């Protein structure tokens, strides 16, 4: 029975994944939606003759669930966020890139060459990085915005006009920064305090939307919205009173990475693809499209000039430090899940 179920799940995943045979000249990419300019894929195919098939997902967790349900062995590369790289490595889902396999490995910017989530870049290369905090409509609120109280203990005029990202990891990380407590704390009193603070804060929130985080701000549904920096830049282009905050308590930093998946059917082509994305010119094309920052030396020369001075990418003086989302152990994660359910019950 067990094998039957596993086989049928795998068969199902195979049917869903587009045409993933291990034939030569192919590459199967599992990627976020709207995160890769089509011209860049065409360029890759023109240079290497490798045909690229791409399936998309809308959250790190959804990607993990799909791979766990049997899609591993279907895809060559995926693009998980920082904490998800460590989770996938822990689950044994990643293949190791051998020394010297990646010709352009030296192009990785020094500060991203040995991150905590993938020591020595054993299985991944940088894709894009940015931050998560929130934007405020300065036409509706003229006070100080670089403060996490805007989200968790807002002034009266912003109460009920706040959209949060529908993402447990990011909300919990910002909430911990707001309280000044460590992420994934195992201290019961701190966890109870986190739970209580979020219960109170929820009363001030209008909605939880991730996909439409930009749109609800531009349309005026809300005046404060938790949002990614690139998304905030696009929102500001449509409504200039929107200002992205760099809170004094700190903000979330994230990096998406291209990883080599275990049992990749086209391993060699995956390596070629990673080398291709380590070319400064190519990864800069992604940044110009997505409005996030590349992690490759020399890419700056190929970026749109306005990206360098983008207010959303350059922390204001007095801002706190950017921190990555931490991976909690099983016990603490169970409490986090319970707190999240309490927030949304």
């Amino acid at each position, binding site marked *: *029975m*067990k094998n039957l*179920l596993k086989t*049928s799940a795998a068969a199902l995943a195979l049917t869903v994944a587009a045409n993933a045979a291990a034939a030569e000249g192919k590459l199967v990419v599992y990627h976020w939606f709207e995160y890769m300019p089509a011209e860049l894929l065409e360029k890759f195919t023109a240079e290497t003759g490798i045909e690229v098939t791409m399936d998309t997902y809308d*959250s790190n*967790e*959804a990607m*993990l*669930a799909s791979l*766990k349900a049997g899609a591993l062995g279907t895809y060559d590369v995926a693009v998980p966020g920082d904490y998800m790289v460590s*989770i996938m490595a822990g*689950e044994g889902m990643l293949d190791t890139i051998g020394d010297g396999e990646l010709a352009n490995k030296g192009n990785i910017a020094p500060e991203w060459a040995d991150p905590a989530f993938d020591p020595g870049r054993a299985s991944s290369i940088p894709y894009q990085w940015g931050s998560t905090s929130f934007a405020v409509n300065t036409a509706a609120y003229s006070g100080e915005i670089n403060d996490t109280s805007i989200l968790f203990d807002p002034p009266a005029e912003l109460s009920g006009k706040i*959209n949060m990202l*529908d993402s*447990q*990891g990011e909300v919990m990380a910002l909430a911990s920064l707001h309280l000044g407590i460590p992420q994934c704390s195992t201290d*019961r009193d701190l*966890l*109870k305090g986190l*739970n209580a603070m979020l219960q109170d804060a*929820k009363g001030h*929130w*209008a*909605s*939880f*939307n991730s996909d*439409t985080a930009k749109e609800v701000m531009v*349309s*005026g*549904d809300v005046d404060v919205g938790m949002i990614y920096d690139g998304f905030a830049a696009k929102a500001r282009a449509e409504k200039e009173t929107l200002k992205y905050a760099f809170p004094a308590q700190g903000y979330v930093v994230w990096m998406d990475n291209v990883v080599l998946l275990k049992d990749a059917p086209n391993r060699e082509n995956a390596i070629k693809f990673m080398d291709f994305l380590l070319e400064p010119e190519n990864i800069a094309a992604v940044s110009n499209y997505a409005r996030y920052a590349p992690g490759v030396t020399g890419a700056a020369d190929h970026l749109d000039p306005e990206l360098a001075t983008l207010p959303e990418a350059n922390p204001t003086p007095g801002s706190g430090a950017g921190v990555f989302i931490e991976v909690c152990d*099983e016990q603490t*994660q*169970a*409490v*986090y*899940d*319970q*707190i*999240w*359910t*309490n927030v*949304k*019950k």
Partner: protein
Amino acid sequence: MAAGAASGGSATTDTYASARNLLLLPSWVILGIFVLAPVIMMLIYSFLTKEFRGGVIWQFSLAAYDQFFFDRGLFGDEPAKIEWTYINIFWRSTWQAGAATILSLLIGFPTAYFIATREESVRPIWVFLITIPYWVNLLIRTVSMKFLLRDEGPLNDFLMSTGLIDSPIHIINTNFAVQLGLFYSYLPFMVLPIYAAVERYNFSMSEAAADLYASKWVTLRRIVLPAIKPGVIAGCILVFVPSLGSFLAPDLLGGAKNFMIGSLIEEQFKGNAGNWPFGAAASMVLLSMVLIILMIFARQQSKADKAEG
């Protein structure tokens, strides 16, 4: 109806008796693969041990159902109390779906009645008009609803320009917006079965009632409604059941502030929680709930048939 049910259809001889099993085979295979197998899989998974970050360990466990019905505090080590969280989520979904069903019935019944009482030649055009909006993807229609309803949207702009209201009516991110979205999503499922029932209704019975001095209200209540009841019940079930598990309208129009059954289950598979057995258990509870409701309907129907017969 009662006579037909008793004799098992109108055919008097069973032409295909010998080949019956063979002919039914495709249906059984389809039902087996697409209905039975997934439900059995879900049932099995709900009794397994959860694996951290999604997946299951093949070891019998009641933990999923325990989590659903018992509250053991934030850290899971307090004495068990009744867990109201998930019951409340189910109650909220039921209530929302019920409100959407009633709203659909209030609008759908007169619409269906109107169509069924038009000239026979124009009826298909009316039915066609009802279905046109539903050629567009549900997601797109729900997002459009959001555009229409928002504080700075066309509906509020219009009402304010007419001077009917001074400040925008706040609809978006409320329960009412969710009900409106569900109602709009599933309205044709109410209209079409009722239309089919009214169309079959013999209007000379209404005339006979009028001849016998029944008021219009009495005619509707005592003659028309009982005759078209199966259509109304079918319509209610077709709106209620998908509304119950829906998560598009609650997410987009309700602001996803509170879990509905659908989003709670989704979170177990696609969210941080990654608790597959619990997701399966919640699905089983939902399935049982729907089955019980359907059985109550069926019971009442057969009772009513017996009473008539």
